[in-house]
């Protein structure tokens, strides 16, 4: 476990790097995913198709392939991402995480909206609530309860997926700490154990927190 102690600052820096990637990607994916979900339930067919296409494409392709496409394919058509702190793969990495995760966010949000019993909105309209009132006072409060647990799972999955971005060559991220350690001559066991622990430090508390929130907001039927 020599690498763990001696290289703690590097692990910690990688930890922060991972959090930074996840922060950017998480916010982006939530926004984009919510838009896609609105598209998927909208009364306008072309938007529905767009939402469906997005989900089908990004949910079924491996993140690694999306990443390859963004990093090597897009520059071919003149889409060149700026480098972030001398790191050319940072923004392609974040962008692919956003697009990939947005598909899962979309499905979580959509299934939440659909899980609200139609009678709820019908009753709201029957007593004369407007569309906005129906949505804000009846449908959304119920939808959010069912959306939060799967959305939390999606976010935790995204944190884990961010390791792929690191494996790809975004240095200063948790997974990339390992290659640096190996170059310094530490054993793979000690170095990778450190990386694994650092991920667990994020994912296990996040999972527990999610469980608590889930129980708090659970709909008692």
């Amino acid at each position, binding site marked *: 476990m020599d690498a763990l102690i001696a290289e703690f600052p590097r692990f910690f820096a990688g930890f922060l790097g991972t959090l930074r990637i996840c922060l950017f990607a998480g916010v982006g994916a939530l926004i984009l995913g919510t838009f896609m979900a609105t598209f998927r339930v909208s009364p306008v067919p072309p938007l529905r198709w767009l939402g469906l296409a997005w989900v089908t494409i990004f949910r079924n*392709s*491996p993140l*690694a392939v999306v990443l390859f496409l963004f990093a090597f394919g897009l520059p071919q058509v003149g889409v060149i991402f700026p480098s972030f702190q001398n790191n050319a793969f940072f923004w392609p990495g974040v962008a692919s995480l956003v697009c990939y995760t947005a598909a*899962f966010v979309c499905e979580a949000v959509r299934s939440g909206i659909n899980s609200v019993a*139609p009678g709820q909105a019908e009753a709201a309209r029957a007593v004369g609530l407007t569309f906005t009132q129906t949505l804000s006072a009846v449908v959304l409060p119920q939808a959010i309860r069912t959306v939060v*647990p799967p959305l939390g799972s999606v976010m*935790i999955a995204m944190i884990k997926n961010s390791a792929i971005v690191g494996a790809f060559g975004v240095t200063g991220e948790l997974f990339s700490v390992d290659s640096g350690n190996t170059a310094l001559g530490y054993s793979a066991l000690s170095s*990778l154990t450190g990386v694994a622990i650092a*991920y667990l430090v994020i*994912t296990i508390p996040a999972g527990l927190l999610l469980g608590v929130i889930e129980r708090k907001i659970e709909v008692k039927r």
Partner: protein
Amino acid sequence: MSSVLYDAPGPRARRNSMIGTVVAGAVLLGLAVLVVVQLGNNGQLDGAKWGPIYNPGNPYFVATWLRLLTGLLVTLETAAITLVLALAIGTLLVILRITSSRAFRWIVVTIVEGLRGLPVIVTIFFAARVLPEFGVSMPPLWYVVVGLTAYNCVIIAEIIRSGINALPRGQAEAAYAVGMSRLQVLRLILLPQAFRLMLPALISQLVVIVKDTSLGFVVFGYSDFVREANTVIQFFGGQLKINFPLQMFLTVALVFILINYGLGKLAEYINRRGSRGPKRPAGTTADTAVLVEAGVHGTAATGGGTGAA
């Protein structure tokens, strides 16, 4: 489109949505044209770049696809072996977790929770880098299989467990009442029903496994579909001065999408067929598939189960 959110549209709503359709259609069409123009301006519509992949008359077509299909076979082989191993170990974990005494159970729970919280790429890398340090040497494919199995067996264990939790309690109670042992109840009554119930979720997990084989790129010497695609790109770029990463990766993505879309449809079909049956407990929904693909975390996977129990 009937939805929770609005009534059947009247004349004004129909007109509005018609206007929306035209506007959105025009915008999307404009974007599509922009993409094509951008592709053309950068010379990406050049036949030389698409030919080796899509034109059977191209001299490199056969060689390219032979190479790609070899890789695809490795990908499918990896996924198949992983699925079988993960199913076996996952079932074993469930049995251990349910039948073992409380003093012993926390070990299983720790293993499950620990492995579930790790990125798959870390478990694959662990297998590929740490096992050789202990003198275990295997063909590259097996490192990927070991890494993928380590992660997926606990996910599958959780899927099966939530399936068991979703079964009506009377099933187990009746079995105990006629004098079966805990292991018998599991083997004869609970597991067969849980498998049937969770088949759609298990297929969704297979989709995840197929996708995750692509993470084998961290294992030296593992030549799956994605790696072979990279090799072909490098060969064409180096030898023939044809640069086609965009075209190639789009093709790779397309193949994955076709395979996984098919598997997803299969899961949906089984789910629909299953929900027609009389014995399906309420509360397990098709949305388990969404949760599973997201990597099942927290107690989300058991949400359907606890609701029904």
